[in-house]
């Protein structure tokens, strides 16, 4: 037989009348039965193992002779009545996506704000927040140190035991901890803002300036007692919301004014990952 006769398109007919296949044999079954009996004798009776051993020997001998010196084969007739139906050609064309095609890609930002803008925006928002918080301290508690000491409670758990009078006093160490904590958190939140603002489908300014601060307040409300017991005890929620809004509006404004930079998102994921996929290579003839 030629190679051409051996191989063809899927479902293709042959001129041959028979196909050679391995001949059926029951020796593997007998061998398996013998092995099982051999082991079953351990939990039943030694004679069972003995019978199993004899069956194994006979099965090995029988199996051996199905392959040595020549492997036994049978010729199976190709029956025309059992041929598969021809494969029907489908002429309907299929639309294939081209890489990066508009309207057929994930809604991920093709342009983002630089992280530096996020950091600067975070600092500006943090400053606005701090000013309002200090104003609150001055108006309600007659001390700008009151909100600063409360904020330090995130880092210094001991502040949870401080009295209202102690919270009104200046303490350099506590001030330093609050300042560092506030700056770090402001920068981090600013960077997160810069990353997620381009992902909002619409009204980014509304989201960043108002809705996200409100969501954040909602998230903080049940957790404040764990995160900062001191603040949880002394907090004024209306002022907290106002401070959050100040952060969102000021920080968001600074970030929104920055110059956007393009990302790899303008390319398909598979292309960025270097994967092989339909449409990634020019048409070529099969090898």
């Amino acid at each position, binding site marked *: 037989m030629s190679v051409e006769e051996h191989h063809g398109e899927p479902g293709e007919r042959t001129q041959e009348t028979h196909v050679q296949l391995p001949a059926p044999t029951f020796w593997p079954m007998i061998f398996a039965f013998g*092995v099982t009996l051999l082991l079953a004798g351990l939990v039943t009776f030694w004679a069972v193992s003995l019978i199993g051993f004899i069956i194994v020997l006979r099965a090995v001998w029988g199996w051996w002779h199905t392959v040595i010196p020549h492997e036994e084969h049978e010729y199976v007739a190709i029956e025309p009545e059992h041929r598969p139906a021809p494969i029907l050609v489908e002429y309907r064309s299929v639309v294939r996506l081209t890489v990066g095609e508009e309207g057929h890609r994930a809604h991920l930002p093709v342009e983002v704000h630089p992280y530096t803008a996020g950091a600067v925006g975070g600092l500006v928002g943090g400053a606005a927040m701090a000013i309002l918080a200090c104003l609150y301290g001055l108006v309600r508690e007659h001390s700008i140190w009151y909100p600063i000491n409360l904020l330090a409670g995130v880092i210094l758990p001991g502040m949870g035991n401080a009295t209202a009078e102690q919270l009104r006093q200046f303490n350099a160490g506590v001030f330093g901890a609050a300042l560092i904590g506030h700056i770090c958190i402001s920068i981090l939140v600013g960077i997160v803002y810069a990353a997620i603002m381009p992902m909002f489908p619409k009204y980014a300014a509304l989201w960043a300036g108002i809705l996200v601060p409100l969501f954040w307040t909602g998230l903080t409300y049940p957790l404040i007692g764990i995160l900062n017991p001191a603040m949880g005890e002394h907090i004024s929620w209306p002022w907290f919301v106002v401070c959050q809004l100040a952060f969102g509006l000021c920080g968001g404004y600074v970030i929104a004014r920055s110059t956007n930079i393009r990302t790899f998102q303008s390319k398909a994921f598979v292309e960025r990952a270097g994967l092989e996929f339909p449409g990634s290579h020019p048409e070529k003839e099969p090898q």
Partner: protein
Amino acid sequence: MASIDYPLERPAVSLEKGFAQHLYEWVATVDHKKLGLMYVVSALLFFVIAGLMAFVIRLQLMFPNGHVVGPDTFNRLFTMHGTTMVFLVGMPLVAGFANYLVPLMIGARDMAFPRLNAFGFWIFLFGGFLLYYSYIGGSGLYGAGSAPDVGWFANAPLTEKAFSRGHSTDYWALGILVSGVGSIASAINVIATAFSLRCPGMTLSRMPLFVWVMVVDSWLILVALPPLTAAQIMLMLDRYLGANFFNTQQGGSAVLWQHFFWIFGHPEVYILIFPAFAILSEVIPVFSRKPLFGRAAMVGAVVAIGFISLGVWAHHMFAVGMSSWSNTFFAGSSMLVGIPTGLKIFNWTATMYGGKLRLQTPLLYCCAFLFQFLVAGLTGIMLAVAPFDWQLHDSYFLIAHFHYTLMGGLVMGIFAGIYYWFPKAIGKMYNEKLGKWQFWLMIIGFNLTFLPQHIAGMLGMPRRIYTYAPGRGWELWNLLSSLGAMVQFVAVACLVWNLVHSALRGEPAGDDPWDGWTLEWATTSPPPEYNFEKLPVVRSSRPLWDMKHPHDPDWKYE
């Protein structure tokens, strides 16, 4: 192409052969398709048996202070249920699907070692019989029977002679050891077949994802099963020859058994779930009319899961008192496996996204898999956190988690595969309406059974308890679970009826009822013994697509 036409009507299978000749044909067969069907049918029979055991377990726990069965019987029931489902249902399903489909999908005439293939099936079946013979001969040939009652992972030192009299534990060890030989034989065969019998043009990058997953699965079997076999031999040495590997009273280590068992046991979970992955990777594209999204990444993910799954076993052992470094390592590695698994979930979903979905039974089961396996993955991540695991270890929360994995994942995937390839294997269409009834009953029954078990577990209900006192808040959840089991019972009955009735009286399916793209749909339903008249040449990962769309074939783009 030659000019011989295909027949419009095929002659029915000859009934002139006598029973003995039919029996010989099946007993002596080395045909991968017959063996594959025998694996699947055997697994389904064991599935029904183990399912009935679960049903009795649920009846026992339906109400507080239940007395449906005695405590000893209850112990045997959950041991045999778990052992059967894992070793006599899951493992033969792996072998069965791989046997039937791998040669057809790669354009081969048979498996690489057909006689070894036959041996693998028979030794699995006899191993199963040996295990169930324990009901008669558990205390020795002359004693009253008692099935194993040490749980499906048979923790030491419970399995030592001092605590487990008679032979029931020996039957557990020997039955699984014997059937494990079949799994090894099948795994060797799948790997050899996939790497040496692919038709011309079928490079590894064009190999169907089903075959890829089965190759990785077989490789996992080869690596993971020997430690269990070794441990079982050591256990037998303990019990028969006075060795003390796991005998804590003589300086042995019970924790050693756990390491041996779980270094097999956790990869085993992936060994069992991989066939479902393989089936979804074939069914979802065909029923979404889109190529699989991220094919190369899917192959990478399954290989990654294969590797990572070998390094997570001790998350089953957080409660034994390992060092904090060990706990941290295994918690981390367990979470790591979620990354490639999540990638697969995303890619299946992305394949369906924007596709022209045909919501027939196979795809419905794939959708169920995606939701339920996601729940299983999330509770798995929760249990991978060691302190969380300490709280809920060996509780019904864990039971719910792994049933969402294996029942909500594996079984749903297998059902999808059964409905998808039933027309190919039998040549008849199943009843779609009954299939959908079965699907909805199964989904309702499954979730009604196992969702409440999360809550029962969090309320402190431990696994394996024979009964419970009222007033602990567990009554409602157990009642719901048991009602769900009844619904599942009806669903499985629908499946059995559908398969049997359709095989006998179903409409002819045609060779390619789903408009498929892989090679098995290019041949007759059911395929002839030789699979293909001419071994095919392929040019892309969707050879039938190329044939059906000669003006727009895939090979232009791959």
